[in-house]
């Protein structure tokens, strides 16, 4: 099933784009639809800890889950999580299966062409993390080492574009698989968030990883269908307010163990 998966995805996405291009302009305003239904449908991937995951009683939890719950509570709406995988987050809002995306969606110019983004509600620091005992200080030290990433993530894209650095990249299905690769010794370096890098040492105390080279800080924003101006404005106002009152920072700290950058601490 793994063979040609990339190719299948790209053809699937291409096929979808063709259909999406043929879409007619939106009829009713999405904000009115949400208000009328008294329910907001939020697309969240529940398999990307610690943003979206299940707790031990299989209830959704995580920083994105709590942001979604806070939004629904503030607006007095019922919340429905639309199960999604990383790759179907955007098609979900484009085709009206979900109203908005709150799912570690980082703002990129490519994505901004097909959906609208709110202001950032969180950031995600990504690093290259390696085995603590490895002497890695800068990019040249990574030559001939394999770096594990989750396939299709922004980390994957960034590292893949660094052709001059001669990196060997191993792409895994999701963070859990990447962590296992690191725990079991398949890779000595990973490109991921600090939370995930720390998780490796917890799973196997004999192989403690630490952040070695900062990769990038991604801005995470809520995504929605293009052209829904009123909903976008209302979401922006909500984000601004909850950055100011420190609620978003508190949620982030609870799950990621670190605070948001100073300008977002309220």
């Amino acid at each position: 099933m793994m063979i040609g998966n990339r190719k299948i995805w790209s053809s699937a996405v291409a096929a979808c784009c063709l259909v999406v291009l043929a879409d007619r302009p939106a009829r009713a305003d999405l904000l009115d639809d949400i208000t009328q239904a008294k329910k907001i449908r939020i697309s969240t991937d529940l398999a990307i800890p610690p943003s979206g995951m299940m707790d031990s009683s299989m209830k959704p939890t995580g920083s994105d889950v709590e942001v979604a719950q806070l939004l629904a509570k503030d607006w007095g709406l019922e919340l429905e999580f639309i199960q999604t995988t990383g790759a179907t987050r955007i098609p979900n809002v484009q085709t009206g299966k979900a109203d908005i995306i709150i799912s570690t969606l980082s703002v990129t110019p490519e994505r901004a062409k097909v959906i609208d983004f709110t202001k950032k509600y969180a950031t995600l620091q990504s690093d290259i993390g390696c085995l603590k005992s490895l002497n890695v200080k800068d990019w040249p030290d990574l030559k001939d080492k394999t770096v594990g990433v989750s396939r299709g993530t922004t980390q994957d894209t960034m590292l893949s574009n660094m052709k001059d650095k001669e990196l060997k990249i191993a792409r895994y299905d999701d963070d859990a698989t990447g962590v296992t690769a690191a725990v079991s010794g398949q890779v000595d370096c990973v490109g991921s968030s600090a939370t995930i890098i720390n998780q490796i040492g917890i799973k196997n105390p004999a192989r403690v990883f630490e952040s070695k080279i900062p990769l990038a800080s991604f801005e995470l924003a809520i995504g929605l269908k293009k052209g829904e101006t009123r909903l976008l404005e209302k979401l922006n106002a909500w984000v601004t307010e909850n950055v100011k009152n420190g609620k978003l920072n508190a949620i982030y700290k609870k799950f990621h163990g670190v605070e948001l950058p100073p300008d977002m601490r309220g």
Partner: protein
Amino acid sequence: MGGHLNANHLLFLGHGALWTVGLSLIALIGGGIVGFVIALARISPLKSVRLLSAAYVQLVQGTPLLVILFLGYFGLAAIGLKMSPLAAASASLTLYVAAYLGEIWRGSIQSVPKPQWEAAEGLALSRTQRMIKVILPQAMRIATPPTVGFMVQIIKNTSLASVVGFVELMRSGQIVNNSLFEPFIVYAIIAAVYFAMCYPLSLFSQKLERRMGRGSANNLSLA
């Protein structure tokens, strides 16, 4: 994040397994019915029917199931047709299975030895009678192993339905794994459950073959 496998996780996996069974049943029943029609259309005396059904088979067989699912769910929604995940997955799986079963069964029907067709015709049986009384019973025996083999494949292929938001066995395993970070145990359980679904089917197929084989043991041209 972290923690140990508990009853809730197993329950969640069990729920996913039910969806896998459900999707497989829908795919096999829906696909079986449509596939039978396709098989007959493929050997129709009318050229236009033959061509149309052949085009359908080629088109679907040349498209990955993942793409069909994607088009069924997101594609139709983009042109204004609301599809629930269940409807989209059922329709896509039915279309997909029908194309393969149709072709498997056409081959089985056509591999019933020519003398059988001629003998049936010689007995002045109508086309329908020929099919039901002479050809299909023999074709069924030929068709059993490849049909069951394909069914087993479909049970495993239902995991692709996770792209339309289905939390079936594989996806539920992924979700559990991403809260526990214990892939070995989680995927071992999933493998065991898939095996428990597929193996009885293979056993049933062997039994069926033996039973159907009895009546025609002296049919040398089939040996």
